[in-house]
């Protein structure tokens, strides 16, 4: 039984990161209808900045907040200068720009900080060998508990932003009908820039926590996390915040259980495959994802 709780808890903790990154994808998707392929690399780049600021002597939490602010500005700038001008032409142009951004940021990080650098990264949470609680026979590391709490808090804040604020209503209006949003006086450009900024900021936080668990920052930091996150966003239905969170946590738990209980034929190498299989199954049965909405319209 303690094994079960261990896998469950480890799964929830990595699932929290998938959820955060999936939320970034959903926030951008809802505003613009694009999957931001550069999301992972934007997170990774911000994480390097966080590491560098910390390296220069800034306390890590302050560095993380600065990284999020830089991420916000960077994300908003990317949207206004790179994405918006080509978005008028076609979806494919946006796709190509995002891929370019992906490769560009990846190489840039490698070029600035050496490839492959093994920069040691401290954790935001207490992470000494004895920093854990034993609950139900499983060891709950403070770091993992911290990640889970941060994940839930950020999700809660996003929900509040979307459902309780004037700006959140404007974001949802733009997602629902961009033309009409302009007609009621919403500055759609500002909303889209803010969506990208918000996603980049949350991504910076997620990246910092990922680097804290592995203890190092490398250009490939977010590769697998991005794959899991897009899987979670797809499974959750791409336009649903709650769906992304539940799907992210589910994928985390399932892949940890599969890898843990079947170490011989799934193990660490095949865990990604398990996640993708579930998604394939769900999408075959329910193409809008678990919590996605069919666009409703009556004429």
């Amino acid at each position, binding site marked *: 039984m303690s094994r079960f709780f261990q896998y469950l808890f480890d799964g929830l903790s990595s699932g929290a990161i998938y959820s955060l990154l999936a939320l970034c994808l959903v926030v951008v998707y809802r505003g613009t209808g694009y999957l931001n392929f550069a999301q992972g690399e934007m997170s990774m780049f911000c994480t390097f900045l966080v590491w560098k600021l910390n390296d220069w002597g800034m306390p890590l939490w302050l560095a993380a907040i600065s990284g999020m602010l830089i991420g916000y500005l960077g994300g908003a700038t990317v949207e206004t200068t790179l994405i918006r001008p080509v978005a008028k032409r076609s979806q494919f142009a946006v796709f190509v720009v995002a891929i370019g951004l992906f490769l560009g940021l990846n190489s840039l990080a490698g070029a600035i900080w050496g490839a492959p650098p093994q920069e040691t990264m401290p954790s935001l949470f207490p992470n000494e060998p004895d920093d854990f609680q034993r609950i139900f026979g499983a060891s709950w590391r403070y770091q993992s508990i911290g990640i889970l709490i941060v994940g839930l808090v950020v999700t809660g804040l996003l929900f509040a932003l979307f459902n309780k604020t*004037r700006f959140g*209503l*404007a974001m*949802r*209006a733009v*997602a*629902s*009908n961009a*033309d*009409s*949003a*302009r*007609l*009621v*006086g*919403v*500055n*759609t450009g500002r909303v889209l820039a803010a969506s990208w900024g918000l996603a980049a900021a949350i991504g910076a936080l997620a990246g910092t926590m990922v680097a804290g668990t592995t203890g190092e920052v490398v250009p490939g930091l977010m590769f697998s996390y991005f794959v899991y996150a897009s899987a979670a966003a797809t499974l959750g239905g791409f336009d649903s915040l709650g769906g992304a969170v539940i799907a992210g946590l589910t994928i985390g738990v399932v892949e940890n259980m599969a890898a843990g209980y079947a170490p011989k034929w799934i193990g660490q190498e095949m865990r990604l495959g398990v996640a993708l299989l579930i998604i394939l199954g769900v999408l075959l049965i329910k193409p809008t994802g678990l919590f996605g*909405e069919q*666009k*409703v*319209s*009556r*004429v």
Partner: protein
Amino acid sequence: MSEILRTHDLRAGYGLIEVLHGVNINVDAGEIVVVLGANGAGKTTMMRAISGMIPRTGVVDFLADDIAHLSAHKVTARGIAHVPQGRGTFPELTVEENLRIGAHSRRDSFAADIDYWYGVFPRLQERRLQRAGSLSGGEQQMLAIARALMSRPKLLLCDEPSLGLAPLVTRELFEVLQRLNSETGLSVLLVEQNANLALEIASRVYLLETGEIVSSGTPDEYMNNDAVRKSYLGH
């Protein structure tokens, strides 16, 4: 009467194709001005050009300020509300959220306005927590108009509100427009293809053909004009 809107040599189109070839119209305060035109005459383009949804050249004077260079969200903030063709409600938002977003350009409190519109359209109150996408066509059109008026505009642009509505519902809708006009002095610029009902509430009428205003006059003149009757009134 004081003039609220005047366009001069208004030109607009899509890409390289010019659809409006210099339109001159004016709306005085408190008027309901109806622009009649066939499919493809440029009615929707004219509305979109006035509200800043598409690039345009020429002059759009609103309350004596030229707004032809402003983008749509700024035009709304100046006091023009545009109910687009096909209603343009937010299907994924609830009825109440649609009304709240309608007041986006305002900084003051608008709770009383929501209650006011629930009073005008009780059906919307019954469905306040339903998604707008689940409403019937007539209800959506009422929501679209209420939402537009949540911004407390000085001028309402209505693009073919009768489209897809049963004649009875259209009549009900036009009665509401007329009542708002006479009770609050709201100015309305209405474009219609289906002219019968529109002429009943019009103060003045323009005829738009292939991107140009070809004539103007009183509703009576148009109702008694044989050519117009054949083309736009269907009898």
